[in-house]
Structures are given as structure tokens and as C-alpha cells.
């Protein structure tokens, strides 16, 4: 016997599920949200970057109550070899604006806060409950969900799947194929605690609200397609690396060994000195890009967030795509409901259309070729960072050799590294074209 009938059930209380539930709740719909965690975002002290814009569109005054760590005033890009890094910094006082654009956050607290807003919007949230599969009627239309708790299925007009990258519910219900190892990265991340003042001094920050982000390419991924990152939170540092699952499988490198090596890199070690490691997490990131996006809608269901592979791996954007797809889904469903139209596959086309109009699909389409490019051009993660660091070395050392000889050496190094000049040129063209 069904328990109760809702207008919509949202599976997951991550950024995407929360955005969808919040939007529908605000529109007056009777929404049930289900998450398997003890509370939304539970257990993780994990840090991340929050992009204001996507959240601001739903909750304009989020800054007043959301648990934000530091706003980002400086971004560093590093190319790593075993001993050195070469990179760029961008730091600007204009990031100290009234409504900063990017923040570091701790997901555990942020998700909890977001869930509270969702509940305040009238959504019924239940936690510690895992959705096992979707329930369909005789016509194959999705009419509800079955959970791991006793008491039968719960019914709704539509189910929004914001279940994250694994997408097991959708997969088990035959809505999408199994994840492919070359479409997902495995990220391992640790949180290291440091006193606030130490972080401030070590990263050259003027107060406890300013933060730094470091993105890293090169030896950090040991030849695999992947990157490393380091974020400053108020009293902790989040550090991690992520590489394609297929690469991990092939190279047989344990992820934690990779992270250990990164932490012990001479450029990184001093930043973590004296810190106390408190949390280790491993999580998947969908990085297949545009071509990996599964079917997004069907009769009585739609997919939002990581479950739909909505991640821009190049820019490390994920939660904002999750929130945007969640919000757009919520808006579409609220409109259908207001117009008295059922959530059939045909009617849900509006969701796909709206996504096409948004930055979400535009960006993913723009970078459509990047995943393949990276997989086929490992030199971007190995040879290039090494050559660049070697060149910088040659350029900076003052050792009695004349400058022209040095330039020649640098160019020669470049050429030998890639075999011939054609390859050097080809790399540049490939990157430029994929980027376009």
C-alpha cells in the first residue's frame, strides 16, 4: 500500500537535489526529498569551491547565513615536475567585492545549511534512507520510489534523480548504462587542520575571509589524465588529486600513494607543515563531458547534477552546474504543474531545451573534444610540464653561459622532448582547437 502521494520526489540532497527541491518547494509543490546520509552532506569535512552565481539565482541573500569559509582572492596554476613548479598567479583586490564570486566551503556544513533552506521552503526531507529503485505503472511510467525502509513505496507525479555521479537508481531502473571508467575520475582528498593565523600567514592573506586556490598539472598525476588541487578553508586545507578511473586501473597506482607524493612535493610540503590530517575521502567526478551525458528525461522522471554528467572538468565546475540543472528542472516541473500538464517525456522536453539555452550545455559542448584530446595526448601531463620547468631553470640560472646559448638549449629541449617541431606545433594546435 502506498504511503502517500507527492507532487515530486527528489532523490539526493546534494547541490542538484537541493536546488530542485528548493525551487519546487518555493513554487508551492508538495515535495519529498530523500537522502541516504545521516544528514545531508553528513560525515564529510570535505572542502570545495562554491560559485556564487548559481546559488544567488535561488537565494540572493545566501551570504548572510550560509557557512562560507573564505572568498577566493588569488588563484594559482602550477605546472609540476618532480622538484619544481612553474606557474601563474592571479590575485586581485577586485575579488574583495561586496558580493564575492567564489568561496571555499566545507560541504558537510554547506549541504546542511542548504537543506535547512530547502526544508524552510516546505519540502519534506527524510535522511538515512536509500532509494533502491523506481516504481513504474503498467504503462512503464515512473510513479514513485522504493526505499530500503519498510512501509512500501512512496508515490509521486515525477521523480527527480539528483543522486550524484554513481547514478545507481537510474542504472538499476534501466534509465542509463553503467558508468564507464574512462568517463569518471577518482578524486582522493584530505582535510588538514591548521590554525587560522597560520593559513593567513602562509598564504599571504590579509584576514580570515580571504582565500587561495591552487590548481596543479604535471607530475602530480604520474602520467595519468588528472590534476591536483589545494584550497584554503578557514581553519583547514583541502588537498587532493583526481585522475581517470581507467588510468588508475591501467597504471595500478594506488590513489592515496599519488596524494602522498603530491603532499610531499617540495612546493607543497611547506604549505602543510604542522597540519593535522583529519579526513580522507575518495569520490568520483564525472568527466566524460558532453558526449557522456545520458538520456535526461522520460515518462515521470528526469536527471539533474552529477547523475547527468554535468561537470566541466576543465574549469573544475560541478556544484554550480548541479545547482543550475536542479533549479531549471524545478522551474520546468513547477510550470508543468501550474499548467496542469503531466510530466511525460514529451512535456519534459522543455527541460532539455532550457539546458541548451543555459551555460551548462553551451560550455559542455564547447569543451566536447577535450576529454578525448587529453586521453590521447598524455604528453600534456608529462612532457610539457617537465620541459617548461626545465626551461625556466635554464633561463633563471646565472652560470656564465651566454643567453643565446641558453635559448638554443631551451628550444632544443623542447624539440627533443616532443621528437620534432611538428609535434610541438601539433600539440598547440590540438589544444587550441579543442578549447575553441
Amino acid at each position, binding site marked *: 500500500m502506498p*504511503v*502517500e502521494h507527492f507532487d515530486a520526489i527528489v532523490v539526493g540532497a546534494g547541490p542538484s537535489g537541493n536546488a530542485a527541491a528548493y525551487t519546487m518547494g518555493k513554487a508551492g509543490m508538495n515535495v*519529498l526529498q530523500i537522502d541516504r546520509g*545521516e*544528514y545531508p552532506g*553528513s*560525515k564529510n*569535512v570535505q572542502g570545495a569551491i562554491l560559485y556564487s552565481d548559481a546559488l544567488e539565482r535561488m537565494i540572493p541573500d545566501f551570504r548572510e547565513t550560509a557557512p562560507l569559509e573564505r572568498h577566493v582572492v588569488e588563484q594559482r596554476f602550477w605546472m609540476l615536475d618532480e622538484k619544481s613548479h612553474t606557474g601563474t598567479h592571479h590575485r586581485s583586490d577586485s575579488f574583495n567585492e561586496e558580493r564575492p564570486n567564489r568561496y571555499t566551503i*566545507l560541504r*558537510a*556544513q554547506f549541504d546542511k545549511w542548504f537543506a535547512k533552506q530547502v526544508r524552510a521552503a516546505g519540502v*519534506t*526531507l*527524510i*535522511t*538515512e*534512507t536509500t532509494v533502491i529503485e523506481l516504481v513504474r505503472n503498467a504503462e512503464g511510467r515512473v510513479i514513485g520510489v522504493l*526505499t530500503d*525502509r*519498510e*512501509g*512500501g513505496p*512512496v508515490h509521486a507525479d515525477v521523480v527527480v534523480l539528483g543522486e550524484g555521479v554513481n547514478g545507481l537508481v537510474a542504472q538499476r531502473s534501466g534509465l542509463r548504462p553503467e558508468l564507464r571508467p574512462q568517463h569518471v575520475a577518482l578524486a582522493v582528498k584530505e*582535510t588538514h*587542520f591548521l*590554525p587560522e593565523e597560520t593559513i593567513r600567514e602562509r598564504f599571504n592573506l590579509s584576514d580570515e575571509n580571504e582565500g587561495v586556490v591552487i590548481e596543479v598539472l604535471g607530475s602530480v598525476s604520474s602520467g595519468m589524465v588528472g590534476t591536483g588541487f589545494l584550497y584554503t578553508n*578557514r*581553519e*583547514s586545507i583541502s588537498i587532493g588529486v583526481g585522475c581517470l578511473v581507467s588510468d588508475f586501473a591501467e597504471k595500478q597506482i594506488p590513489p592515496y600513494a599519488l596524494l602522498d607524493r603530491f603532499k610531499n612535493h617540495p612546493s607543497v610540503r611547506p604549505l602543510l607543515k*604542522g597540519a*593535522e590530517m*583529519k*579526513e580522507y575521502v575518495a569520490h568520483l567526478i564525472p568527466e566524460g563531458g558532453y558526449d557522456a551525458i545520458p538520456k535526461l528525461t522520460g515518462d515521470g522522471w528526469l536527471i539533474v547534477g552529477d547523475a547527468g554528467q554535468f561537470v566541466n572538468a576543465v574549469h573544475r565546475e560541478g556544484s554550480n552546474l548541479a545547482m543550475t540543472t536542479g533549479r531549471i528542472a524545478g522551474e520546468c516541473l513547477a510550470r508543468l504543474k501550474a499548467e496542469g500538464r503531466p510530466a511525460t517525456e514529451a512535456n519534459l522536453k522543455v527541460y532539455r531545451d532550457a539546458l541548451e539555452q543555459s551555460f551548462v550545455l553551451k560550455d559542455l559542448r564547447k569543451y566536447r573534444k577535450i576529454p578525448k584530446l587529453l586521453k590521447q595526448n598524455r604528453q600534456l601531463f608529462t612532457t610539457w610540464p617537465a620541459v617548461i620547468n626545465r626551461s625556466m631553470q635554464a633561463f633563471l640560472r646565472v652560470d656564465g653561459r651566454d643567453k643565446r646559448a641558453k635559448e638554443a638549449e631551451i628550444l632544443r629541449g623542447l624539440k627533443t622532448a616532443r621528437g620534432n617541431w611538428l609535434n610541438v606545433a601539433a600539440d598547440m594546435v590540438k589544444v587550441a582547437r579543442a578549447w575553441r
Partner: protein
Amino acid sequence: MTRLAREFHSVVCIKQVPDSAQIRVHPVTNTIMRQGVPTIINPYDLFALEEAMRLRDEYGGTVTVLTMGPPMAEDALRRALGLGANRAVLITDRRFAGSDTLATSFALSKALTRIGEEHPIDIVFTGKQTIDGDTAQVGPGIARRLGLNQLTYVAAIDALDRDGATITLRRRSEGGVQVLRSRLPCLITMLEDTNTLRRGTIQDMLRAARAPVTTWSAEEAGIADPMQCGLRGSPTVVKRVFAPRPRADKAEMVVVEGKTPAQTADAVLDLLFAQSPNLEAALSARFKS
């Protein structure tokens, strides 16, 4: 709090505590860094809650959960509702801050009195102890203040006679278990591992998500004299908080290279008895007879 012949009613006192494994201490100032520390229901209290629900399922009636804490302690109550508790009461007031066990048991006993006026209480349950305060005193404190029969370290409730208002139970004591008969109303502090916590049904979860949590300030909880609450009502005062000195020495490592397991085992025993001659004596004594 004399019992009226109405439906059976237990109140379970639960506390929201930081997940102790995640507590950090600021290396310089020695204060607690609470940032990002998840909170849980004090694990010991869950055994009390389950026992109360088990009795309810057998004898009918109601289980109320009660906590004193900051507003966010509502999460703990809601979780308890999802596990199957019927009603939740939160007492929260700035004036409660800094309570020691005496002040905590004072505030809770006032709230219990108020609950009992509306709905007489047969049993007040608490956990054996909390994992943050870790004193095991709040239960006895409540019992004393309310004049309830105090039954601590209860391992099992064998029988309940509602008409005769008696309860038969097992209480852990040194070297054994006391089988006791006492009278209702009483206060029970429940021992760990005495039952297995259930999972609420989907209906429980839906009810919990929407159930109102009754929230009382100090006055509403019937506390007329704030002098007995919080820091003022606490005879003890914490003068210093500090991190324990980490053990300087790591384990002494037994050399295993080139040894058979039997030789390694002998080496372990040699080192063991060298470090603790008492141990050898004690061990030997046990088996002498």
C-alpha cells in the same frame, strides 16, 4: 510525579554530542576547534531509546524524547522521532550554557516535571553516560531531584507489572549482575549493547520530518530560578583545558627478522614480563591452584 493509571509513558533523555573522533584541539591556544565537527546522538542514549520503544511496543503507550541543548539539538530529536519516538521536547535557553552535571540534571528534572504534569511518567531513561561529558551523573542527578527510584547500569528489563507498578530488571555490578525489583516511577540508565536499534519505517520517517518539536525556554520548562542553571548553577568550574601530552615513544618493536613464530612469541613474552613484572606474577597466580 506520582503515577496515574493512564497509558504507559517513558521519557528518554538524549544528548546531541560532537562525534568525538573528530574533535580537534588548537595546537596553540588549546581550545576546541568545533568547525566542521559532525554531531550525533550520544551513542549510549540509543540503547535507552530502543529499550523504551520496546516496552512501548509491548505495553502500549508513548515514548517522549527530551534534550537540553542549543537550538540545533532539534536535529537529534528529529532523528529520534525517525527511529520511532512519539514526541520530542527541546529545552533551550542561553541561560543553560555552561551547565555542569548538577545544573543539567536540575534543568532536565524541571522539564520532566512539566512533561509529567501533562502526561504522567512511568520511566525516565538515560544513557549510561555521554561520550563528551562522560560522567554518568546526570541520570542519578535527575533521579535524586525527582525522588525516582534510581536504577543504573541496567542490562535487561525482565518484567513490568503495570498494575502493581513494579519492574524487575538486571543491573550490572562489580563481578556480576543484580536482579532487582523496584517500583514505578523509576529512572533507568541503560547499559550499552543491551539491544539492537531498530530502523524506523518510511512512515516513521515521514512523521518525523513533519512532527513539531516542542521547544521550551527556561521559564516554559518551569524554571523560576535561573540561579540554578548554567554556569551560575554549576558548583564545578573548569579552570584549564589542555591536550594530553602525546606519548613520546611509539611502540617498542619486537625484532622478527630471522625468527620463527615461536621465537618471536617468546621474545614478546620476555619483553612483556620485563616491562611489567606484576603482570607475570598476576598471570601466574591465576593459574596456580
